[in-house]
């Protein structure tokens, strides 16, 4: 399961996200954030169920403040979807799996 979600950092972000062929959803999270933990299982399921259509990556904002700052992430969890390295969709706050799938429909249909 864990293999379906990549971990990205300030150092690897551009290469991993910019070089991806599918859209990449980056989960900006931190250890102290309760709602981030709430959505983690749903993201893991989506990563498995929609493999090949959307990739899911996690970025710890505590360890990687530069990337968080670069994309004006000021609230976590924030989910940013990147296409060709550019952010094209922003979701803020914890949501259930059903809502997430609805919000991501354009990428996984």
């Amino acid at each position, binding site marked *: 399961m864990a293999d379906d979600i990549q971990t990205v950092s300030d150092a690897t972000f551009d290469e991993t996200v910019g070089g991806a062929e599918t859209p990449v959803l980056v989960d900006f999270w931190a250890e102290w*954030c*309760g*709602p981030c*933990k709430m*959505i983690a*299982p749903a993201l893991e399921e989506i990563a498995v169920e929609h493999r090949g259509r959307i990739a899911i990556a996690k970025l710890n904002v505590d360890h990687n403040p530069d990337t968080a700052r670069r994309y004006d992430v000021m*609230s976590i969890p924030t989910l940013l979807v990147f296409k060709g390295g550019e952010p094209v969709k922003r979701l803020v706050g*914890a949501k259930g*799996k*059903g809502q997430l799938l609805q919000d991501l429909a354009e990428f996984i249909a």
Partner: protein
Amino acid sequence: MPETRELVIVGSGPAGLTAAVYAARANLHPVVIEGIAAGGQLMLTTDVENYPGFPDGILGPELMTKFREQAGRFGAEFVTADVDRVDFGERPFGIWVGDTEYRAKAVIISTGASARMLGLESEQRLLGKGVSTCATCDGFFYRDKPIAVVGGGDSAVEEAIFLTKFATSVTVLHRRDELRASKIMQERAFANPKIEFRWNSVVEEVAGNGSVETLKLRDTVTGETSELEVDGLFVAIGHDPNTQLFVDQLDMDANGYLVLPHAGSTRTSVEGVFAAGDVADHVYRQAVTAAGTGCMAAIEAERWLEAKAHAEGAHAGAQPEGAGRSG
């Protein structure tokens, strides 16, 4: 139709999980539909200093993990998803989670309450870009920046104190001229040099291009407007009960709280459906009162199920089985 369960508990804060501990120990094999926001409001807090048994305080998420472990130890089953629909008009009661249907003879509602927003268009636009409802999540982003907290209750004051760890200054905006927060929290806030109070103030607009830059405030007494430059606004103006699921199914008051028509009981307007915690409590709203009513709900559900089984058993002796079901 799926197998009928004795008891389904909807919600997993202190009320739902205490109900689960008691119900599991009574061999009711409860299913707890814990929701995406599993653990409830305490998952968004830091130190809980008023829950008995923890003299040094305990972190909210840690406390809820312990509650859950305790319920699990006695065999409560957990479903980590939100309920989409309920039908309390038929028996056994119907509860739907996506395409999965649950049937239960009794239900305990403990869906709690969620943070209220100001209701401004600009607040929605800047949510996650300076507007936040979770100080423990987002305080980190405001290191060495000025911020404001709107609200005057315990959670507003607690957030303000927590945020002084990061921010250069925290301005508490309150629409009245005194706080509703407990005395000990007030004293801590007044003693904190980083916290400043703006009384009789309401936020009229949150302004900023990419992120929050200025708040437009109005004085509720003089009507004067002013501006406050901040990088962040934390909203802590109270909570609304999570009862949208039960509209047209259970009686609720004008503010959406479930009505418990029998004093000293957790029974709702539908026999066999019980409510515990903040979903039916606009007065105390404490973890310990939620736990207390969760216990009450489990005991009441157990007794009700027992009485019903007894009555049906007596009934079935006189008539063909199933004859009494429509009642």
